[in-house]
């Protein structure tokens, strides 16, 4: 019986010849990731279990991104604990503010994760790295502690569900719209426990940024991981970045899928997810008049250079509407510098946006753009649960960077085509 790419990668990290859905396995991990919220608990567990040395100082990655640069004293304490552990264990991939970015943007960019890897991260959006053809999944802090100790993690091999994207993308439609559309279609538990494998002829037209965005939100459909088979684009992307050897896996022709969903992308227009579930999606043409107080462009979902370029193309020679805040957060220092060099910052500043240092910030209601009671925000982030970005009476609408930018200019949720032409 053939295996899917997810099954093959998992299998290659065990001593087994074959793995099949439902099997419980112990797999070697290539990267075990924690951040300033989840690593401190893992470090405590690690010590409690008598841990002396992490299994491999190059494979444990610690990223202060959620509340860093330190938001307050308790954030500072968490970051301090993580830093001290990094120093003590001589962790290679610990990044101090100044070279640090949002974990799921930083790891692919810096070639810390590579195709064929098994990655666990004590953060639910670890599934992002599936875009590179790796198996990556979110876990709890105890899983991280155990992996730091043993270099292994247990998994139930997931069933796979295949999503076949075909057709040409419409103007203004990006990876974000495809994944929002899919979640709208199958629901927040539509892919529960499953591997979501993205295929079809549209894939060749998707940038790495699009693929990262799509895999990032696989968890919002309940999936264990999202994955794209590596292709020429992956090879190009990884060549100059990879810090380690990598391997490309492909699903067998006779691999088994529990479900195959065909999506004709030419029928999809830019999508918006209404509060308070990512699955509450509708096309931009059906949104109506939704006034906003704030727009956020950033996060591990859409804070990459392609996202900032797309936003800048919309914002050029335009201004944010009166009484609306536009917050732009490049996800990593490299993205920050590129945006600066390319002149995007001038466009943003001229538009009266504010540009933040790389951080998760408002995405999880941390800081740098918290909403008051009754305020509405259109955001390129990935969750719009009640109170996600501030007060429980506030509202978050999820969309792509071009929608967020156009909405900031018009003061209501809108697509770029609704903007008045610039003379």
């Amino acid at each position, binding site marked *: 019986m053939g295996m899917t790419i997810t099954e093959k990668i998992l299998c290659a990290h065990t001593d087994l010849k074959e793995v099949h859905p439902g099997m*419980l396995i112990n797999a070697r991990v290539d990267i075990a990731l924690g951040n300033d919220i989840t690593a401190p608990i893992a470090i405590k567990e690690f010590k409690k279990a008598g841990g002396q040395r992490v299994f491999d100082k190059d494979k444990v990655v610690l990223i202060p991104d959620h509340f860093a640069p330190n938001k307050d004293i308790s954030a500072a304490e968490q970051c301090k604990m993580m830093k001290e552990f990094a120093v003590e264990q001589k962790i290679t991939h610990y990044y101090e503010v100044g070279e640090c970015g949002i974990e799921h943007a930083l790891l692919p960019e810096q070639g810390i994760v590579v195709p064929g890897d098994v990655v666990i991260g004590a953060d639910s959006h670890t599934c992002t790295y599936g875009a590179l053809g790796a198996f990556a999944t979110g876990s709890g*802090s105890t899983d991280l502690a155990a992996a730091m100790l043993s270099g292994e993690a247990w998994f139930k091999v997931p069933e796979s569900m295949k999503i076949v994207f075909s057709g040409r993308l419409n103007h203004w439609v990006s990876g974000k719209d495809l994944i929002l559309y899919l979640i709208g279609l199958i629901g927040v538990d539509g892919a529960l426990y499953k591997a979501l494998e993205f295929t079809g002829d549209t894939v060749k037209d998707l940038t790495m940024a699009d693929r990262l965005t799509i895999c990032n939100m696989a968890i919002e459909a309940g999936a264990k991981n999202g994955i794209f088979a590596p292709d020429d684009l992956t090879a190009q992307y990884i060549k100059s970045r990879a810090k380690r050897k990598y391997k490309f896996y492909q699903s067998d022709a006779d691999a088994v899928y529990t479900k195959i969903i065909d999506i004709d992308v030419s029928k999809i227009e830019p999508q918006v997810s209404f509060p308070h579930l990512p699955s509450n999606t509708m096309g931009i043409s059906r949104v109506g008049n939704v006034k906003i107080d704030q727009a956020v462009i950033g996060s591990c979902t859409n804070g990459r250079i392609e996202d900032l370029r797309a936003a800048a193309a919309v914002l050029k020679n335009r201004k944010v509407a009166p009484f609306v805040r536009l917050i732009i957060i490049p996800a990593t220092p490299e993205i920050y510098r590129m945006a600066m060099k390319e002149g995007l910052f001038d466009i943003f500043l001229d538009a009266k946006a504010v540009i933040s240092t790389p951080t998760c910030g408002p995405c999880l209601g941390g800081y740098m753009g918290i909403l008051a009671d009754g305020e509405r925000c259109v955001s390129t982030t990935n969750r719009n*649960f009640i109170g996600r970005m501030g007060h429980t009476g506030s509202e978050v609408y999820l969309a792509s960077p071009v929608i967020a930018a156009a909405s900031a200019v018009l003061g209501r949720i809108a697509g770029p085509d609704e903007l008045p032409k610039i003379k």
Partner: protein
Amino acid sequence: MMHFKGKIWKFNDNIDTDAIIAARYLNTSDPQVLASHLMEDIAPDFVKKIGAGDIIVAGENFGCGSSREHAPIAIKEAGIACVVAKSYARIFYRNSFNMGLPIFESKDLWDIVDNGAMIEVNGDEGCINILGGRTLPIEPIPPFMQELILDGGLMKHLAKKKKG
């Protein structure tokens, strides 16, 4: 060993980790403090009403939302013996075994059992017995996960393996 008998407390579909333990209590990881706020926002006084060995019976996607481990910790520490849901969010599912909280899946139990009923969950033989009523099959917990639970969670399991 996977044998539990207790009174059941029913919850609906999509009970998220915020409902199980609200984010405002995440500044502590003290199990007893967490347990004292279990289900506070959706079932006030829940902790006062339950007894040791009681069982939570829930609908689909129990434990969805964040990866916080505080949720299974709070349930276990409050004295809940096990959870039987139609399905679980996957990180909650992992975390439960890692914390040593036994959880079972049954698509049918929720629909046929009343709140407050007594049930017997036999994880070894793979069945649930509603006292004075029907017996339903359940998937037995795989041996590896049974080991995790019996050892008191993943870290204790690893420590034991290390000692060999």
